[in-house]
């Protein structure tokens, strides 16, 4: 995208909280969470060619780490750190968890790696339930500390009025998420365009050739797992801030379950594996559709009976994956490139 076009996009995104109602902002924030996670997965699976279904697990690692590091509850483990430090710590811990899993990627490849990584989701399900003193347990969960930046609280606290609009918790969180997304996007772009990204692609395309060119395959895999898990961990922190609660799943189809891992993979595929703007677009489709359809449907009175927004959107993104695989393996990113070529 041209650098110039970024300016109006940024202006619109910055101004939206002044116009949109809280429920639309909530939906937008959810898409941003998806986008951060999907960027991480598209680096891992698209750039470095490592299939992973463990994204849900790393989300849980990030979410739990933030809650523990910043927590102040009496009956649970909590270090009471500054929320910003806790956020950075949670991202670091998630990255370490990714590194710890990397040796598995040295042993198995392709779909086998995907299946092996799936085991982590079940491990997460078990740990979330068993480590009640960290996660708060499935019964009640635990409330995360409100995010604060240099004394400014991202909650309803205090009054802050811009252009006649009181900026309350939801509006403030929008800006926080926007900053985190922009940072994630910028860092990923940087990694892909430099030597790191080239080593990822070398490992993806041919490990022997990569070794011959002086790329340390094991270190590269460990590195990309660390980066991808760090992104998932950040998305995990964002998700507890969005939900106002960390609640480990009661079964494998929860906030941090298989369905979440698959949803992230769907975002990466629909957007075009390896493309960062594509991952963001994929997140808008996969996480945005159900939310927006639900909001519209209550406004307009659509979808009565058994055809619900959630159902319709699962069909839409299921169909999108099939169509992408069949007709445009490059995903939305490839379509975007074509439009660009047509114009110039």
């Amino acid at each position, binding site marked *: 995208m*041209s650098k*110039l*076009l970024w*300016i*109006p*996009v940024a*202006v*619109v995104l910055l*101004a939206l909280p*002044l*116009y*949109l*109602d*809280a*429920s639309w*902002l*909530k*939906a937008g924030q*959810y898409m941003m969470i998806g986008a951060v996670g999907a960027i991480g997965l598209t680096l891992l699976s698209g750039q470095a060619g490592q299939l992973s279904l463990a994204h849900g697990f790393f989300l849980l690692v990030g979410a739990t780490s933030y809650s523990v590091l910043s927590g102040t509850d009496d009956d649970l483990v909590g270090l009471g750190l500054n929320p910003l430090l806790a956020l950075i710590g949670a991202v670091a811990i998630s990255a370490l968890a990714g590194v710890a899993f990397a040796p598995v990627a040295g042993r198995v490849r392709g779909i086998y790696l995907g299946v092996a990584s799936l085991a982590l989701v079940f491990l997460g399900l078990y740990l979330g*339930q068993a480590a009640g003193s960290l996660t708060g*347990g*499935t*019964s*009640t*969960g635990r*409330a995360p500390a409100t995010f604060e930046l240099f004394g400014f609280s991202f909650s*309803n606290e205090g009054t802050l*009025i811009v*252009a*006649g*609009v*009181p900026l309350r918790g*939801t509006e403030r969180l929008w800006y926080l998420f926007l900053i985190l997304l922009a940072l994630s996007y910028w860092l990923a772009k940087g990694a892909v365009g430099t030597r790191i990204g080239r080593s990822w692609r070398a490992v993806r395309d041919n490990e022997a050739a990569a070794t011959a060119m002086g790329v340390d395959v094991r270190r590269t895999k460990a590195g990309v797992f660390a980066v991808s898990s760090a992104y998932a961990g950040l998305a995990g922190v964002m998700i507890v801030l*969005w*939900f*106002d*609660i960390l*609640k480990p799943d*009661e*079964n*494998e189809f*929860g*906030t941090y379950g298989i369905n979440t891992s698959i949803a992230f993979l769907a975002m990466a595929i629909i957007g075009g594996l390896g493309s960062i703007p594509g991952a963001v677009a994929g997140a808008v489709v996969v996480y945005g559709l*159900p*939310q927006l359809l*639900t*909001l519209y449907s*209550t*406004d307009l009175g659509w979808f009565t009976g*058994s055809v*619900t*927004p*959630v*159902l319709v959107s699962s069909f839409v993104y299921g169909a999108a994956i099939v169509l992408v695989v069949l007709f445009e393996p490059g995903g939305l990113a490839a379509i975007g490139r074509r439009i660009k070529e047509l*114009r*110039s």
Partner: protein
Amino acid sequence: MRRLLFKAAAVALVLPLAACSTKGGAETNSTGVTDKEITLGVMADLSGPFKSLSTAITQGNELWAKDVNAAGGVCGRQIKLETVDHGYKADTAKTLYPQIEPKVLGFVQLTGSPVMAALGKNIEADKVTTTPASWSSELLNNPYAMIVGTTYDIEMIDGLSYLQEKGMLADGDSVGHIYVDGEYGANGLRGSKYYAEQHKLQLHDVKITSTDTDLTNVVTGLKGQGVKVILLTTTPKQTGSAAAANKALGLNVPILSNNPAFDPALLKSPAASALDKLYIVASTVPFSADIPKAKEIAQKYAAAGYKEPPNAGTPYGYAVGEVWGTVLKKACENKDLTRDGIHKAMQQTTSADTGDLVAALNFGTPGAPATRQVYVAQPDASAPGGTKYVQPLFEAEAAKAYKAPHEGQ
């Protein structure tokens, strides 16, 4: 040319924003009330795993609203229900909430424990009195939660006292408790743990997940422990499996279950013949209970022409409406139809009567369940609704003494 195009696009993107005015920020306390109408919210699961229960509750809510409006409404205002479907997805509910919250005075229904967990903080911040369709006493740490009926822990305590009174259980016995991990199971276990401590029972608790279907190995294990009673805080399917294993393994001990662990559909399942040892504890009546009010609702249900097969959700939904009616009337007498007023009126409601659909309710003590009375029923395929009462409303001594987790805080 390209530059020009981009500039045009940029202007086109920004222009509409500048043209329209920003959103207002007015916050009032009397949301959901006009001179003619009171709007109450329903956040239901009309498409997810608890579709049939939640739909029935919603229909019960609707029947009540219709009856109240036909009788002239409350406080000279008609009741309007604003219903949304979150499909048991906490993320959908979290986005829907800010859309529906500014329109309603309170929520007569909020289905789904993950949904309630995700919205708890909002409900407290916005001071919206809410009736969750979940009966965990852990929810009572939220002062705005108005649970209609008793809680899972107290169901277990009352049920165990009943079994002991009938000679099926003695002090010092071994007891097995199978529970689903989560808010529901943990709360049931809390009750059985309390009772076991009081009566020196040896409690063997087994945690399962809600997606488990075959409990044969679990029951085999309990048989090895020599249990005299099996307690279930499970899903109906799991109840069927446990009951069948109880019979097949020749264990044949009484089974005591929480209300949600039984579904009349079990009587048509292969486990039907094994249900004779099952005792169900509940504070709300089944659909075809032999109570005038329940019969009246069954008639109205038939007259309303709903397509779904009825279940216990409908009388419960109606009962919740009745409780809300009582609270609204109280708020009207206090001349305070605001959210604060509703909350105050709720705390002043110490004897809400629902025509025996639910035991008399007292919301006066923060953190305490509104009632400790339960029915005990047994499955009976010949009885309308699939259960027959073996014990009318009662309250055990042990339940009276029990302190709920957030009581007196």
